[in-house]
């Protein structure tokens, strides 16, 4: 007969902890309409994940920027939100998103509630830059009445949750070149070239 004292029994119970199935939280929250849903569409610089919550666009990430963890893990890490694949993407939504990404449509319903008021001001200015044009970080800072906040403008644009749809790539340094971009300077230059913008 095995010797099984109380301490060993308690240790066995305390070790009997499991991680819940990895997709359980998504299923629970989706059922309660508390999960974001993602779809994948083709954009100007490759396959693109777009997250939506109750019909509004909340986040966007290039497929190859999602990393090995994938888009759902990225959403959890960055926004603390659970995101699941949209089981039946609405063809109208897919067409609207494709139009927005490839032809510059800007009337989609974007949810910027994850942003600070300052970020929202900056992104609203970026959204107003017409396709084919650029503005400098200083232009944006002045347009929101914070002329010295050039660096903060750059930070706010860098945290844009919906790049491409809010065209932060149309904001460039005053000193020339395309400057930084969440998806890389090469992609920023390509996007501006596709849009016909002239960058010094």
């Amino acid at each position, binding site marked *: 007969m095995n010797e099984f004292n109380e301490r060993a029994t308690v240790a066995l119970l305390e070790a009997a902890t499991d991680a819940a199935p990895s997709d*359980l939280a998504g299923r629970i929250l989706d059922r309660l309409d508390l999960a974001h849903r993602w779809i994948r569409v083709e954009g100007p610089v490759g396959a693109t994940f777009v997250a939506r919550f109750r019909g509004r666009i909340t986040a966007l990430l290039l497929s190859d920027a999602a990393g090995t963890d994938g888009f759902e893990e990225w959403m959890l890490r960055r926004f603390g939100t659970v995101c699941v694949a949209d089981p039946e993407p609405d063809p109208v939504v897919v067409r609207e998103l494709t139009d927005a990404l490839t032809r510059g449509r800007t009337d989609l319903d974007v949810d910027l509630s994850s942003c600070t008021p300052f970020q929202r001001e900056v992104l609203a200015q970026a959204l107003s830059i017409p396709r084919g044009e650029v503005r400098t970080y200083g232009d944006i800072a002045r347009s929101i009445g914070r002329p010295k906040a050039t660096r903060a403008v750059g930070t706010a644009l860098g945290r844009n949750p919906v790049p491409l749809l809010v065209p932060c790539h149309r904001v460039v340094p005053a000193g020339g070149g395309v400057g930084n971009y969440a998806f890389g300077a090469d992609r920023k230059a390509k996007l501006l070239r596709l849009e016909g913008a002239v960058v010094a």
Partner: protein
Amino acid sequence: MATNPAGTRDLALRLATDLDGAFVELVLTRQDRLWSGVRRLVSDSARAEDVVQEVFARAHRALASWPRSRIEALKVDGWLWTIALNEIRNGARNASRRPREVPLDERPRPATSATGPEEHALTTLDRERLDTALATLPIAQRDAVVLRHVVGLGPTEIAAVVDRPVGTVKSDVHRGLTGLRRVLGEDDPADPEPRRIQR
């Protein structure tokens, strides 16, 4: 020893002010503990998934209808377990009307990337033996032992969950551990005779 997630009071306050936002946090921070406990109390993973999903669905429905002051005063973890035990009992009642019980034959899931070191410490065989031994205990003792030593609730919290005096809960935990020791000590790991659960 398992411990309760930190910030229970803060979470209740957040649930009171931003139910949907805080509920995501509730699910993410409570699902593993709830899963571990429920998994020890039901016969298989599919049933455990049903229970955990239903617990959170019921919890959200309730919170959505409660006044803010009631949510702020909520002891979240104990309350979730009150719902869970009710759900398990309801399921057991329904199952008892079916022609036969489900054999305890399911193997634990493979470790995932989210698996902690504790899980690796317990072999599949240990887990099967533990679940089989737990299934031999009277329900009150099984609930008390799992809530105390798998979930990590204190005797007072458990007393509130099961609506029994603290002294009775302590006695149930003690008797449950004694029963487990006896079964585990007698159990021969080389004998994989399938057993049937009580619930």
